[in-house]
């Protein structure tokens, strides 16, 4: 045990000393932590067979604070129903869609939450007037719709990789679309449009690994 402790200390020491020499005495790296956000409520008005166009405010989320926000500018991603938008690119032009003010972008990677350890910058796309960076529709993006059970379930192995409005990175795995993320949601009894997701935010500038 002692040897291991010693060895660890030694490794840490070398690590820190090499950091300080590389970074020219800059700030040490901020820690990267896996977080879970529960029950992000993303209501929408109209759509889905109501005969009305979809409308209603998007629920915005800021990775740097890990909180929802109503800011016009300081948000990274936003949710309305099953739609997910990024604060980058241009608006698709739906009702009540917020203007993009940042340089956020996104793509969907195939893998487990742990296995997506590095951002592939070349895949990043932004919202446009023909479609969102995270494609909408069952089977196209992050979810599947089961028309028999009226159920929205996130597709396994789909990890959403984001660039934030200010050029940092985050990855997200959506776990549930239903309030309190029940193990086996029932569209008849569980309230929908409540996102629960795991995410990792990389707060350090220019670092593309998680």
């Amino acid at each position: 045990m002692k040897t291991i402790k010693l060895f660890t200390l030694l490794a840490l020491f070398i690590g820190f000393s090499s950091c300080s020499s590389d970074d020219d005495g800059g700030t040490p790296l901020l820690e990267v932590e896996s977080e879970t956000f529960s029950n992000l409520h993303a209501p929408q008005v109209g759509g889905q067979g109501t005969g009305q166009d979809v409308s209603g405010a998007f629920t915005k989320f800021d990775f740097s604070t890990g909180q929802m926000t109503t800011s016009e500018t300081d948000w990274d991603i936003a949710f309305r129903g099953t739609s997910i938008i990024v604060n980058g690119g241009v608006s698709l032009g739906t009702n009540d869609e917020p203007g993009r003010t940042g340089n956020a972008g996104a793509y969907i990677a195939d893998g487990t939450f742990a296995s997506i350890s590095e951002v592939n910058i070349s895949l990043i796309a932004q919202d446009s007037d023909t479609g969102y960076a995270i494609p909408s529709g069952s089977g196209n993006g992050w979810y599947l719709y089961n028309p028999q059970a009226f159920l929205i379930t996130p597709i396994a192995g789909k990890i959403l990789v984001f660039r934030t409005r200010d050029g940092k990175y985050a990855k997200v795995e959506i776990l549930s679309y239903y309030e309190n993320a029940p193990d086996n949601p029932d569209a008849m009894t569980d309230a929908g449009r409540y996102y629960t997701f795991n995410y990792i935010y990389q707060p350090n500038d220019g670092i593309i690994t998680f």
Partner: protein
Amino acid sequence: MILNKKYFCIYFSLFLITSLFPQEQKEVKADSTKAERLEEVLITATRTVRQLSSLPLPAQIISKKELKSTNTIRLNDILNEQTGLITIPDFGGGEGIQLQGLDSQYTLILVDGVPLIGRSAGTLDLSRVTVGNIKQIEIVKGASSSLYGSEALGGVINIITEKPKQGFGGNVNYRLGAFNTNDFSTTIDYKKEKLGISAFVNRLSSDGYDLTESDNLNTVEPFSNYTLNTKLTYDFTENTDLFVSARYYTQNQDFIASEVLRGESNINEWNTHLQLNHKYNEKWSSYFEFYATRYKADEFLDDSDGLRFSDNFFNQLMIRPEIRATYSPKSKSTFIGGVGFNHETLERTDFTDEPIFNSPYAYLQYDTNPTEKLNIIVGARFDSHNEYESQFSPKAALRYEFNDKLALKGSIGYGFKAPDFRQLYFDFTNATVGYTVLGYNAVSTAIPLLEEQGQIANILVPISEFQDELKPESSIGINVGTDYKLTSNIKLNINLFRNTIDNLIDTRIIANKNNGQNVFSYFNVNEVYTQGLEFNASWKPNNQFKITGGYQLLYAKDKEAERAFEKGEVFARENPSSPSFQLDKEDYFGLYNRSRHMANLKLFYNIPKYKLNANIRTTYRSKYGLFDSNGNGYLDNYDNFVDGYSIIDIAVNKTFYKNYELGFGVDNLFDFLDTQNISNIPGRIIYGKLNIQF
């Protein structure tokens, strides 16, 4: 209706003629226990009469005796009880056979050696076939295209019907069961000297049943159908004989699509089969065969105002003349060869064309015993076709008898299934949802038309990819097994099988439409294999008692899916709200609707003293998946499965006054139901039966 006055007259007069003949020469039935000692023979495996026990191919016979003692009325019922066979309901309500893990469209169904047609969606509905006039059912497993051509990719099921027997005879059979299911059959047959004649009528009607109370539709709507079959045999000389058979089937069923949309569906089918046989000498024989059949299905729906909402028809015709000859240079050594021509047409709703298939073919087979212990069969067939690549289907089989108890057998063969009319010519757009399905040959004309109409958003697969012909699905089937006679009462056999299918035809999206829907078409893609083991055992301690058991182990998988799992491209979740993880090869379950394990156990008991026989039969199938429930595109261990189940049937029959038999039985004794997943199991069926021989 084809059943016009003229036809009715013919059938009626046949009845009249036959019933006018006096009751004479009543054949005294041979003692049945003695008859059983005789070797069972079948014709399907080699197209010559062969002993089942000496055959190098995996084959099986279902005897008339088994059909009678189980009080079966339809073909699907009895096939379901056989090892490795299961009937699968398709969305259209038909029940097709799954054999060695292969779909219904890969098993050829024959009646007296000629095929049944009418596979509107690939499935041949076996509930169409009454067992009332069946002598025996022969099942040959493994690719058999070397003799039978297209469709005989997984195997062949041949229904051998009764031929007129010496003297005058007949029977009446009636069974009444749950759901007001009435099955009535009668046969009259007569044979004297050269002329034999028989007539058979079956009527089946049922109120249908409903498994889901929540909607206005029944799972099976009420129906009634008739089967008429008349036969004539004439022996010109000892060496020349003629066989003519005419069969007619008609069914009428309610067709209800919703509360307001109601109509009817009708099926009309006829088959005429003529065979002229001549034996030149001990070595040479020849057979001339002419077969024509038409299968017609129509359905319509009217709305609540009585206006026609939809009309669908399917009208297929097949004509096939064939000549074959056998030559036996020495005993136990036979050549059989044949040439024939297959002509098929189809008129169908939503077809671009009225397609015609013409396919001349020739085959040759040599069956020989070089030594007492060794039997070798080699054969091949060539099918030419006007719409797809010509096919050459070879086959070889071998059986070696080590001693009286043990024999080893193996066979390897090529099988194919031609693309069907639908896969080539379909041009269908769903009126309510808006998607389009195009046959392979229809793509090059239909897509430009849709583009002109401004319906296409983008083309994903260019039309140029549809220039080559769609290839037939083909397979290599290998079977290796042993027959083992433990004692004179106990027989065991094991068969290992593997079918590797190439060019499986599947659908894919070829274009997106502006309405958000897609255009689908057919293409050759998958490589699929089914492999496993079949085990059968029978024990007959005495003449009163017989126990048989069977088991099939099956792995049916898509090679491309296997590769995706190997590469780690497939993910799942423990439950819908937990993080996803990567699946490995072991997590891939295989193709849909395949059970890993299927088994049956049957016990037949016969008490001659009381003229009573009874049996109890049980079948089991292990869990299987119907669809990909977790959205990763594959059936894996984390999907929802249909639970395994077993069904127990019992039957008791007693004979009175020699010619009268009363039967009673319960199918599905414990009332097993899975209303969510299994539409062809309606629950417990209690029935009674009366059979009169004269």
